[in-house]
């Protein structure tokens, strides 16, 4: 019953190839961002994060079938990711915004 509600075009090897091409392009752009770091300046980090996120979502949605699969699975994985990301943000803030100067030995 769930399959019907989320019915999509049946993924075929052509889909996998298309995703692979996108992944490759994103990786190349990612490395290029790194190469042109000095030009991009503060934009480097957000651009890198966007490309990584795109790759991440492509693999999870297509190769791992979340796009075609039961929504419950998406929910489970998203909550795990969400809590991990939130704690990451909190830790980053604690250490890099509110952090105190370190004592050097």
């Amino acid at each position, binding site marked *: *019953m*769930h*399959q019907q509600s989320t019915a999509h075009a*049946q*993924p*075929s*090897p052509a889909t*996998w*190839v298309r*995703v*692979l091409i996108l*992944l*490759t392009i994103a*990786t190349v752009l*990612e*490395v290029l*961002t*790194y190469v042109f*770091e000095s030009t991009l300046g503060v934009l*480097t*980090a957000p651009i*890198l*994060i966007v*490309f*990584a996120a795109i*790759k*991440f979502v492509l*693999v*999870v949605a*297509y*190769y*791992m*079938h979340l796009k*075609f*699969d*039961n929504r*419950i*699975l998406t929910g*489970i*994985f998203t*909550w*795990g*990711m969400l*809590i*991990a*990301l939130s*704690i*990451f943000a909190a*830790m*980053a803030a*604690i*250490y*890099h915004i509110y952090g105190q100067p*370190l004592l*050097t*030995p």
Partner: protein
Amino acid sequence: MSHAAGHTLPAGEHTVTGISHNRLMMWTFLASDCMFFGSLIWVYFAYRGRYFEGPYPHEVLDIPYTSVSAAVLLLSSFSIVMALTALEHADMRGFRGWLLGTILLGALFLGGQYYEFITFYHEGLTLTSNLFGTTFFVLTGFHGTHVFIGIVWLLVQWLLSFVGKLTPAHVERFFVTTLYWHFVDIVWIIIFMLVYLMPY
């Protein structure tokens, strides 16, 4: 033909959600593993830049080299999904071929990591040399361990396919393996971005 990697449940299994027990467990485990790698990553990130002595990241990291190995791992995600499609179509020859390809790509990635570690070691970066060494080796090392377990798991399934213990009837079981393999890949997407490409 089973659809989208076996929306059909294995014989004799009835579930409320229509998701097989194994698939549900694997996704739940992966959510849990997010927190595992999350913990490693946020410790790495908290210590970022707190390196009292060298070698520093920019002195040792070799981006072109690692870009290739990141691409190798991405490619293995593609080949394993091809193996899955082959199994769904009961194409055992194709399945074995793509699966072997995946195993070899995984092994290539691990070999690359081994070579990278050795190089860093010779440049003076060790587990104990500084905080970068400690956090870098432990984070990427745990990822490598995941890859290694994945390779063993795939190898076992590859061998089983020759003795008739892995057949198109077991597509759901194999699908769960591919989930694990892809997860290892997406973890590397994050590590590659955060550890290698992110400017210091």
